[in-house]
């Protein structure tokens, strides 16, 4: 009896919600209850079904089975407009913003009324001031930082005066300081009686802020809990379903005698287009045996730096990039690879691997120049047997899970494909390894394996450069961390001195001197 009256008081009751894509059951009879004025966490690894679940709540996907009860009434939500009408607002993970439009126009598009754009801009300004989310409604989205874009999404959502706000991994793109501001806003909204469904795989912030949590694994609910009573590792174990391996970072053998293997000297590059960031006088040295990390909020020039180092874009002077003592600034990708460098770009499908080609073919594409003798016989004939053997070796070492003997790259899940791509490069034992976002969207178990492999490579004497937006990851694998902000690269900070706070300040644009001062004062 007690539970029914409790359930009646809930804002949202979801029972047995199911969604099937082909043979994959993305959500399998999911139950979820959210009360008024509650921050509810939805936890789970990538592919656990979190996004599918909230898309059904927001009307962008149609459930195959199950009921949604809103304020005690059973409702069917078939379009986002209906969801908004009920009072459900959503802040998307991959922002649903239009780059070529202004902030106010973006907001106008999600409001159903025919309000003039000037009124909307005015209202947006009011809301942004009331909640401490500064925003110029007439700025073009393409010019804004990721944090500012998220503000637009939140303001857009608030203007609809929702009772339930769904946030899909909101902090994955923010600096720690920006995330703190977001938490303040969310807590304020909770105090106003609004409910929040908070999706994340960052356990610390869930523990800090959320009142209740629902954990999903493989599309099924595996538990409801109070995150404040759990530890981060107990939550992680619930999500993964087994113990997560710990990454071991042996002491760095770094000595000043170690030769610099990768050097960047006074690298500058003008912006490529209106939404691209210039590189401004970048200096960097990575020694053998060392892992250097580059932190930064997305879109501060990391992609441009990666392109410059990998040779996708060549430099103006040969000396701007030096690989193992050779000036490589004017060389293309293959020539840089021949010098012993390996590169793993951020985008897996279409950049790191050709989606429609098989794994063996992808292996050949990446290595036909560097390992010509092994994979290409006289007359340019491909040696299939060698390729098959090498692919099998990589798959075994990296524990790549696949459904067929030699599947197309696009048939692999993101995490497994990433393991294959990293394994493909590691298999060459490169002397320089440059990785952009090594574990983005990869589940915890696979991420631990990839990180360990990078550390092991460095300890065997190679230079490893890791570009990542995940600070936890950088602190786990790096010996020193530099920060990119607006095309500038900061001095590397040895890991022993680095803290989240210091790195976060640099990510927000503070100068090196200010950071050591601020940290000294605190």
């Amino acid at each position, binding site marked *: 009896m007690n539970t029914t009256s409790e359930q009646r008081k809930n804002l949202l009751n979801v029972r047995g919600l199911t969604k099937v894509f082909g043979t994959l059951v993305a959500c399998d009879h999911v139950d979820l209850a959210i009360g008024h004025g509650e921050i509810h966490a939805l936890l789970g690894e990538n592919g656990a079904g979190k996004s599918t679940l909230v898309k059904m709540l927001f*009307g*962008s*996907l*149609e459930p195959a089975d199950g009921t949604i009860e809103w304020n005690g009434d059973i409702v069917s939500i078939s*379009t*986002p*407009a209906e969801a*908004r009408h009920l009072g459900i607002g959503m802040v*998307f993970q991959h*922002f*649903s*913003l*239009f*780059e*070529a*439009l202004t902030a106010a*126009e973006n907001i*106008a*598009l*999600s409001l159903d009324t*025919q309000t003039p754009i000037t009124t909307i801009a005015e209202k947006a300004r009011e809301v942004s001031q009331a909640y401490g989310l500064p925003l110029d409604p007439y700025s*073009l989205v*393409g010019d804004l930082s990721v944090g500012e874009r998220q503000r637009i999404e939140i303001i857009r959502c608030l203007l609809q005066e929702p009772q339930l706000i769904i946030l899909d991994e909101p902090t994955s793109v923010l600096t720690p300081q920006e995330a703190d501001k977001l938490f303040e806003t969310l807590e304020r909204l909770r105090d106003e009686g609004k409910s929040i469904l908070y999706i994340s795989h960052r356990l610390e912030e869930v523990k800090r802020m959320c009142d209740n949590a629902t954990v999903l694994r493989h599309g099924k609910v595996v538990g409801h809990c109070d995150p404040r009573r759990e530890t981060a590792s107990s939550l992680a174990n619930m999500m993964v379903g087994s113990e997560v391996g710990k990454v071991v970072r042996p002491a760095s053998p770094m000595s000043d005698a170690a030769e610099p293997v990768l050097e960047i000297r006074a690298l500058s590059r003008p912006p490529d*287009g*209106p*939404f691209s960031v210039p590189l401004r006088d970048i200096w960097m040295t990575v020694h053998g045996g060392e892992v250097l990390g580059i932190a930064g909020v997305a879109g501060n020039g990391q992609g441009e730096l990666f392109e410059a180092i990998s040779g996708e874009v060549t430099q103006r002077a040969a000396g701007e990039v030096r690989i193992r003592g050779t000036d490589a600034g004017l060389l293309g990708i293959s020539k840089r690879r021949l010098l012993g460098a390996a590169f793993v770009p951020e985008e897996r499908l279409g950049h790191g691997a050709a989606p429609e080609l098989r794994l063996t073919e992808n292996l050949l594409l990446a290595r036909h120049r560097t390992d010509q003798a092994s994979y290409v016989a006289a007359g340019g004939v491909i040696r299939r047997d060698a390729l098959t053997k090498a692919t099998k070796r990589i798959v075994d070492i990296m524990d790549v899970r696949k459904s067929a003997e030699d599947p197309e790259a696009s048939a692999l899940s993101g995490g497994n494909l990433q393991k294959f791509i990293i394994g493909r490069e590691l298999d060459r034992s490169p002397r320089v390894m440059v990785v952009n976002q090594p574990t983005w969207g990869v589940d915890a178990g696979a991420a631990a394996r990839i990180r360990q492999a990078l550390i092991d490579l460095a300890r065997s004497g190679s230079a490893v450069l890791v570009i990542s937006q995940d600070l936890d990851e950088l602190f786990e694998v790096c010996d020193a961390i530099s920060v990119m902000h607006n095309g500038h690269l900061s001095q590397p900070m040895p890991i022993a001195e680095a803290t989240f706070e210091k790195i976060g300040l640099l990510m927000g644009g503070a100068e090196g001197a200010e950071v050591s001062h601020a940290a000294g004062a605190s």
Partner: protein
Amino acid sequence: MGILEAVLLTIATAATPLLIAAMGELVTERSGVLNLGVEGMMIMGAVTGFAVASSTGSAWLGMAAAIIAGMAFSLLFGFLTLTLVTNQVATGLALTLLGLGFSGMLGEGFVGRPGVKLGNIDIPVLSDLPVVGKLVFGQDPIFYISILLTAGVAWFLFYSRAGLTLRSVGDSHRSAHALGIKVIRIRYLAVMFGGACSGLAGAHLSLVYVPQWVEGMTAGRGWIALALVVFASWRPWRVLAGAYLFGAVSIGQLHAQALGFGIPSQLLSSLPYLATIVVLVLISRNRRLTVMNTPASLGQPFVPDR
């Protein structure tokens, strides 16, 4: 009527079909759909317009039929690319080839038949003004439509709510779908608008320009309209400028050939293309503006996930 006035009038007549077809394609492309079938839709409009006008004796009925024919043809394109998600480039090319052939078949019995000309509308008093009188106030109805169309499209795109929705679909169909905007429906409407405009542009050729039917009479104008849209960075008033520039140079080079300047005629014939490209490239030098105005999802297929 002075020489200058006559020249200006021919320029307007040459520019009008380009302007109308390009304006339709601009709206289609702003929604993210690349329809390379402009030439095919235009010639279908031309043949249908001529056939109906010459059978009924009413040029106005012919014009209406041309619009409907263009729209029907674009609907075929819409069904293939939006519903069946075929490749837009290949489908557009096929539409052009189909239109050129089909119109030849339909129009076989009409070759050499006398046409009906859409009469000019003279605005009293104003059309008697010197030089510009006939040019601005004594034109055929399709000329007036083309100017109103440009102003209307410019207003619609940048000052109306529906235009904002259309631009958003062209910028990112994924985001638009996530917001609950009906991407496919909007694209169908945009494609049909483009078809209607192409049909009308065709009617201008067979009812105003040369009131008769000749096989293949569009003579590549659809392709020029397509190019104008791109070079004008998808902005309506620039399309107008480009269409008139093209018209002016093509008429100018004819007069130059007649006067016999000793410049090879082949070079003169290529001048309109060269001049239009050079000028429009120069005015779209601002890369930022170009990128902002280019529909980011142009030509990409969209399948909503449900």
